């Protein structure tokens, strides 16, 4: 038998129908939906008189537009309300389980899937959302789809897919103190570029990846799409199994043990071939900060904003000029001299308990700088919020001058009231710094939670490694 990659194994396990020269029909184990990209899919089904084939494998949540302040108040945004109402009606009619905004399990779709154990190794998972790649941290094949495909999965529980190429990303060595999963993935995207992984499914390996917690692995897989690859995965191991045991939707007792035995087989065979391999040395990665308008334009915190002229390709020169103009930055400025207006710690990239703990540890007993207009902590789910409150993290943040909010996408996308105003600059733990992402004409710098926390305290970017080491992790 030929040696296979993890991706090929999961792919083969889910083939429903194949025909030479055509994309295959792939079975989908879990379908996650949210209010933003599902209404048109349900209307499409209705128009054709079709039904949801497997409501039991479909999970819905409200996350993109939910308010992060008081949810007992009426929703003022009528368009958002219409989407919430539509999701509720669609779920009720089709029998799909919905975590509405008042559910104690509500949260960002990619946070609650793993948190509730809906996400499990070896599965195929799709969602009308590009950051579905997050779930790959469990050794699942998970990727984002468009609304027409959401409709397709609702109707058939399958997806029409061509096989992807494979990309092996190895991060060797030990991650230095102050360097987080976020810095690793930003460094990877910086290296391969935002289109570097297009057409590929990535598998991460190497000591620095293996040593990450599940929270950290999810951060890495989450931003895989920012490097162009639709899915990123980490083969499951003891860390994965320990995380999953006891979660609500995970099998229990003997059935859990049997599942673990099956999950252990989900590794890439020795000698399996990847179409492309990228290798990094963890020791060489510094805390990262993006300076432009896509996640691939990133540099170490000790560096400077680059000169457009330093790029060889004329397209890159033009894009860099545009980006610096948009960002209000001068070439040559040291990153640590860039002042920050607002800090956002949240999003499906960095709003899990590990992230909040690390940030809280850093800010404990300190206070946000005077020039910071707002510092937001938005836990990824109500479950995480409750767990953090149990540890007293909310108090630490509040005393340090941060606002402690309810769970949702929030300022990652600014579809609710949490918007970054025009020309203001954020240190944000989210995943996209595209023009207008956090608000029209807003300026986003992507960083890790500890880098964001440190920027809040200092009022500008700062090398988190300068903080006493114990304060970092």
């Amino acid at each position, binding site marked *: 038998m030929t040696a296979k990659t993890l991706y090929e194994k999961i792919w083969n396990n889910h083939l429903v129908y194949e025909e030479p020269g055509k994309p295959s029909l792939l*079975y989908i184990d879990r379908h996650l939906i949210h209010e933003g*990209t599902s209404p048109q899919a349900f209307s499409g089904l209705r128009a054709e008189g079709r039904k949801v084939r497997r409501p039991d494998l479909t999970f819905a949540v409200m996350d993109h537009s939910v308010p992060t302040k008081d949810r007992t108040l009426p929703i003022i945004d009528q368009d958002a309300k219409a*989407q919430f109402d539509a999701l509720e009606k669609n779920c009720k009619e089709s029998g799909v*389980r919905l975590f509405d905004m008042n559910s104690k399990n509500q949260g960002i779709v990619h946070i609650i899937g793993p948190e509730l154990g809906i996400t499990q190794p070896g599965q195929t998972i799709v969602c009308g959302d590009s950051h579905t790649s997050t779930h790959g941290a469990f050794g699942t094949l998970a990727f984002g789809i*468009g609304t027409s495909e959401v409709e397709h999965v609702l109707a058939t529980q399958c997806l029409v897919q061509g096989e992807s190429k494979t990309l092996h990303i190895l991060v060797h060595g030990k991650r230095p103190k102050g360097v987080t999963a976020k810095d690793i993935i930003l460094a990877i995207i910086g290296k391969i570029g935002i289109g570097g992984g297009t057409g590929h499914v990535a598998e991460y390996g190497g000591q620095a990846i293996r040593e990450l917690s599940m929270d950290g692995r999810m951060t890495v897989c989450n931003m895989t799409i920012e490097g162009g690859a639709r899915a990123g995965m980490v083969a499951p191991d003891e860390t994965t199994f320990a995380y999953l045991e006891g979660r609500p939707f*995970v099998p229990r007792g003997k059935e859990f043990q049997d599942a673990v035995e099956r999950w252990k087989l989900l590794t890439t065979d020795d000698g399996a071939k990847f179409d492309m391999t990228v290798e990094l040395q963890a020791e060489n990665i510094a805390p990262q900060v993006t300076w432009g308008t896509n996640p691939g334009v990133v540099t170490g915190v000790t560096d400077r904003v680059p000169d457009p002229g330093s790029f060889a390709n004329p397209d890159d020169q033009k894009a860099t000029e545009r980006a610096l103009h948009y960002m209000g930055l001068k070439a040559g400025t040291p990153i640590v001299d860039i002042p920050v207006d607002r800090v956002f710690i949240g999003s499906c990239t960095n709003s899990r308990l590990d992230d909040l703990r690390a940030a809280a540890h850093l800010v404990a007993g300190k206070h946000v700088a005077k020039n910071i207009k707002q510092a937001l902590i938005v836990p990824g789910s109500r479950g995480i919020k409750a767990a953090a409150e149990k540890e007293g993290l909310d108090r630490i943040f509040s005393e340090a001058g941060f606002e402690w909010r309810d769970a949702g996408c929030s300022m990652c*996308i600014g579809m609710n009231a949490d918007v970054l105003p025009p020309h203001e600059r954020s240190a944000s733990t989210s995943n996209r710094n595209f*023009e207008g992402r956090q608000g029209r004409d807003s300026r986003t710098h992507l960083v890790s939670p500890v880098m964001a926390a440190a920027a809040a305290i200092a009022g500008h970017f700062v090398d988190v490694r300068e903080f006493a080491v114990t304060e970092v992790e």
Partner: protein
Amino acid sequence: MKPFITHTGLVLPFDRVNVDTDQMVPKQFLKALTREGFGRILFYDWRYLAGEKPNPEFILNFPEYKGASLLLTRANFGCGSSREHAPWAIGDYGFRVILAPSYADIFYNNCFKNGILPAILKDSDIDQLFKRAEADRSYTLSVDLPNQSITDNKSLTLTFEIAPSRKEVLLKGLDDIGTSLQHVGAIDAYEKAHAATATMYAPVDVKNYS
């Protein structure tokens, strides 16, 4: 879906790399319940100034490009968010063909669900088309999908790449769901064969999980 066979139209040269879907349809328009009417807001933040005044410096607002139906652009078009609102906006605006050296995966997929042809051309051919389109603001091209060719009226002929199965979807205007449902027997069989390991475990206190 309307089949796509040939198309002739005005070319709009949009000289930017890595155009992401957040730019095509900014987040404030993701709260819609229908697929219609997105053409008006395509490239909203670039296209309109305060008060929805058209930005005269943005190429979509140039009067000579009114009615353009081929969008000529650069690498990695459609990166970022999976929002299908992006191709809905492109199609509703009136574009039927995109010409670029490469696309982001999800966006590329989404185009085929909406009868838009995302043609992949060699970098050097894209450069050449930009030269011609920028020199002549009424530059038109004819696209022939069966032959995978693009011609102008000055004897330029180029070819583009597309997978045969993708080509068929556009040529026949196929409805994916209808096609897949022809294999419902295979789906049933798959579910039966995997039932033992694919059980959906409901939590013990299942009432707490709604």
